């Protein structure tokens, strides 16, 4: 059921949290507000109905089909419960938390106090924030894509631990290498990338038996402050942060989710990257990065980039032919795509990477990537699935026509027959069927 309803990765994570930790979060106004925003519109309206409905409950019988998903999801999160009469009731502490958050508004409930920047070249500073934050995140990705001594110096040990814990990298030190899971991570859209990183980080904490409440508290409150142009807002640091929270904030700074010029300044900027965390839905990025890729009908890919990271990702499924300063040329070939498919990258991931990173010039045309190219990538994937492997048992060398016929008809009756060849007198049944045949054979022989 959960698969049917599109849920934000964070919600799935939340439902995996231990009960008590989740209930603390669910009574905290900023968390309630944040969570509410991640839900789908239909689920949101369902909650609103529950809040404002005087009875505070809805009977099962009156619910609509479209609500089934929402209810299942909300029950999973303990936001709603069923009372003894079979009515759906909203968790009272969530109701309280949400209402108080909604009344205060997102900024006030975040409890951060704005820092007013009086500097002259504000505009430039803002640009700087965007640039620096993108650079930071790129450093992480670059380390993952191209692990080397030089890329390693740009990331902290925490980041390396998270990536390793998530299974994106294998080995340590010089032995370290990207895994196929790591490659799949690189192909994700920015929203999904950042969400999955954050969730992997929280999982690592949970794995070490540390509570994630403290960290989520900081992160969710920051996220609530995001609006249209996050880089224009700066806030004072919170002095009440404990040591773990301070470390976490520094880690967010390293990832580029927030920007702090100097630690002693005592204030931080939000960044467009952080804005990604406001989006429940994974494929559209709020930071509309203009991509660099042009895919042509002749399977050539032109990458308007000098970023070795982008090229490293591209080269995982493209055969690269030319490298210029501002542009690189590659060709999608059967071999190059199969190489990627073999390490577990899917055709959809390749296609969506090409789409999300398409150059404005081709994004403007009707199709960002030619249909023949996406079809072909899928066909290359499909051709790997033409052979189905199944464990089976072969019977041959029957002593008589009758024996063969009997086995065949038994197998047909039991629906365990995979293949029969009447000219060679072969019968192939599923391996589970083998036991049945054995038992039946024994009985048959005893009977005669």
């Amino acid at each position, binding site marked *: 059921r959960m698969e049917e309803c599109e849920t934000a990765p964070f919600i799935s994570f939340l439902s995996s949290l231990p009960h008590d930790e989740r209930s603390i979060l669910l009574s905290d106004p900023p968390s309630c507000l944040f969570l509410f925003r991640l839900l789908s519109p239909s689920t949101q309206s369902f909650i609103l109905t529950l809040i404002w409905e005087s009875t505070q409950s809805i009977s099962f019988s009156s619910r609509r089909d479209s609500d089934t998903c929402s209810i299942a999801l909300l029950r999973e999160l303990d936001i709603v419960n069923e009372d003894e009469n079979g009515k759906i009731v909203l968790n009272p502490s969530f109701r309280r938390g949400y209402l108080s958050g909604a009344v205060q508004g997102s900024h006030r409930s975040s409890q951060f106090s704005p820092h007013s920047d009086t500097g002259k070249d504000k505009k430039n500073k803002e640009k700087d924030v965007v640039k620096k934050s993108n650079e930071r995140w790129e450093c992480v990705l670059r380390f993952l894509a191209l692990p080397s001594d030089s890329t390693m110096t740009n990331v902290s040990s925490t980041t390396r631990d998270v990536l390793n814990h998530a299974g994106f990298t294998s080995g340590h030190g010089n032995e370290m290498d990207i895994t196929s899971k790591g490659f799949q991570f690189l192909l994700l859209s920015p929203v999904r990338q950042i969400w999955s990183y954050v969730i992997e980080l929280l999982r690592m904490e949970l794995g070490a038996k540390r509570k994630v409440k403290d960290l989520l508290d900081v992160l969710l409150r920051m996220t609530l402050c995001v609006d249209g142009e996050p880089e224009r807002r700066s806030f004072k640091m919170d002095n009440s942060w404990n040591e773990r929270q301070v470390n976490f904030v520094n880690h967010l700074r390293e990832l580029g989710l927030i920007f702090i010029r100097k630690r002693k300044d005592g204030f931080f900027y939000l960044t467009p990257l952080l804005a990604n965390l406001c989006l429940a839905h994974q494929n559209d990025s709020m930071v509309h990065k203009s991509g660099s890729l*042009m895919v042509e009908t002749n399977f050539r890919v032109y990458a308007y980039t000098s970023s*070795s990271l982008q090229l490293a990702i591209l080269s995982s499924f493209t055969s690269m032919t030319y490298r210029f300063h501002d542009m690189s*040329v590659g060709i999608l070939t059967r071999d190059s795509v199969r190489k990627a498919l073999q390490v577990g990258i899917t055709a959809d991931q390749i296609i969506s990477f090409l789409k999300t990173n398409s150059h404005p010039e081709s994004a403007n045309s009707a199709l960002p990537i030619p249909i*023949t190219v996406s079809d072909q990538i899928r066909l290359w994937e499909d051709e790997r699935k033409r052979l189905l492997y199944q464990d089976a048992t072969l019977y041959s060398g029957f002593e008589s026509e009758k024996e063969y016929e009997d086995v065949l008809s038994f197998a047909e009756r039991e629906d365990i027959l995979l293949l029969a060849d009447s000219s060679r007198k072969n019968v192939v049944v599923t391996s589970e069927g083998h036991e049945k045949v054995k038992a039946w054979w024994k009985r048959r022989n005893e009977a005669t």
Partner: protein
Amino acid sequence: MSRRGGGTSKRGRGKWETYREEFNGDDSQSGGHSRDGGEEATSVPKAASENLDTKINYSKTDEFGAKDYRDEMPLKADFTHRPLWVAPDGHIFLESFSPVYKHARDFLIAIAEPVCRPEHIHEYQLTAYSLYAAVSVGLQTNDIIEYLERLSKSSLPEGIKQFITMCTLSYGKVKLVLKHNRYFVESRHSDVIQKLLKDPIIQKCIVEETVVEEPQQTTVVEKITFPGQEKDKEMDTTDGAVPDDIGELYGRIEGDEEDDAEAIRSLQLLSFEIKQETIEIVQKRCIELEYPLLAEYDFRNDTLNPNLGIDLKPSTTLRPYQEKSLRKMFGNSRARSGVIVLPCGAGKTLVGVTAATTVNKRCLCLATSNVSVEQWKAQFKLWSTIQEKQIIRFTREARDAVPQGADAKKPCVCISTYSMVAYSGKRTYAAEEAMKFIESQEWGLVLLDEVHTIPAKMFRRVLTIVQAHCKLGLTATLVREDDKITDLNFLIGPKIYEANWMELQKAGHIAKVQCAEVWCPMTAEFYAYYLRAQIARRLLLSVMNPNKFRICQFLIRFHERRNDKIIVFSDNVFALKRYAIEMNKPFLYGETGQTERMKILQNFQYNPRVNTIFVSKVADTSFDLPEANVLIQISAHGGSRRQEAQRLGRILRAKKHSSDAFNAFFYSLVSQDTVEMGYSRKRQRFLVNQGYAYKVVNKLPGMEKEDLKLGTKDSQLQLLQQVLAASDADAEEEDCKEENVDGSVKVSRRESSLSSMSGASSVSYSSKGKAQSAKDREAERHPLFRRFRQK
């Protein structure tokens, strides 16, 4: 088997190798392996074999395996405004969305070969030939380097400069001009003239020992105009983003060469006259001296040859690209020899007719088939003011009287086929007369239709027979599976112009075609035999695959309901007949007589009840079927890119209801898991590079609802029996016939058809031919056929 051991290594190759080579037609431009005979190799200047790919073997690769040219190509400050990357290996990438795209495109097409031109980024390649062509249309070494430098995002790699210099310095310096009916070798470079004059071989050919220093031409050269849209308006709206130096450059290259290169112009024109009968010797010698002669025909000053006196009809207008190609040909008020490349259906014939009316002298037009001879005649009458009596046809079936006496001196347009002219055996009396006529004339212009299909050997023959001042080749695809483009360059002349298919499609000049590769799963029974069979039989089993038949039938029904006109192509005659008879459709192939052919084609054109015809590869080229808008290909000649393009051309003629939607359909039916799949990929390469996209179709919705033949296992097994029982000969593609002009080496299994193709249809001859040289022919015979003979 004993025969196989003898002969040269080429003849000794097994059937399979030959097959592979024919079928795989590779892109490789090297061609070093298959030049026939050492003496011919010298007819190509040494510089022509220069190749950047092999020259620059040092190049760095980056961490992803790509050629890393960053060190050699530092970006300019304003690189975003410039549209080109010129890589040191001669590949050039052009942004089609750049504001200066049009400037760059016109320039690049003049100096480089287009490799692929899809939507956004076009790729070109600098080759020795493309540079030769550039020089011959009047560009100078320094101009080429300078313009390329300006258009480029980075500074031009040193190696590229050297390559351009090396390839162009000696080209285009010397011209062979026919003036007042005397042949002159002309040059503005005195050092070159001196060098030629000192050469002992050339000395023997000079008429008098006088080097003429011509006075500066004072006569104002009248500019040749064509009835088209006056001038491209496209350039007038210049964008603010165009860097100044590029804008200025464009004005210079587009302006006629009379205006530009003032410096060159002011040099004294030096010339010497040579004896007419020694032209070939001089031409050959000049190539050896690395100064190939550019043939130019100053037809306006040719007073010896009478004017034809025809003109284009006032109603005839040229499309912009037709006009552009002609402007390049007649750029300096003389006629240049060369090749114009336009997609099929884009009006090559009109370009040819216009060239003929412009030169206005005797014109010989050579086509590939009798049908196309008729079509040329019709087109001449359609577009020009030519009178019936001025057109003479020489073909096997429709032969006009050879002009006698005074009439023989009157100028005319003569239309014939390559095989007629190049045939080297004995001819009938009438054919002999016709040939004497052709040989005796001094032709102002020779139009060579579908030049790429003609093997070099045949060409040489044609060109030694025909005395012509100017040669214009017309073709849709300069792709040759046998790499003989090299020869074309020096036999006819450089490529003068090549159109961009996608741009013509966008402008509505050719149909918008949806290409599809339809996958037909093999039935289990057919596949079982397929796996065990020899290659030829494999091909037949793939074509006869019942699922392919059913899909073909479904597509025909689907399109007939839409009132489309459908052509089905099959190279394999066995399949052709079986499909056509089974579906009750008319078919034509090599052995179909001329009258029946015309009848079928006319029915297809005008009879609303005949909407589908089946044709063999005889219809590949120059069958003009303007009605057809759907093409289904069930069997093809291996991996031939050219054939695929030619076939597509059958449905390219712009359709009436031009809109944004596709108005023509090209289906290539391939049996899954067979060799057809690989071939299909290769075949598509040319068109894909022109920007076409093949959609793979592996399921046709609605097929299960149709009542199609061969639905039962029994009928399929019956078909399989028939396929297995078919003779080996049936399994082969259709072979030699009149239209199959790729060389006299192929000898038909039916002895008579070769002689009849050249007009000798008398019984006495054909039996004689059989007796006379059976042995010689054996040696020449294509290895494919030898195998059948040995049994």
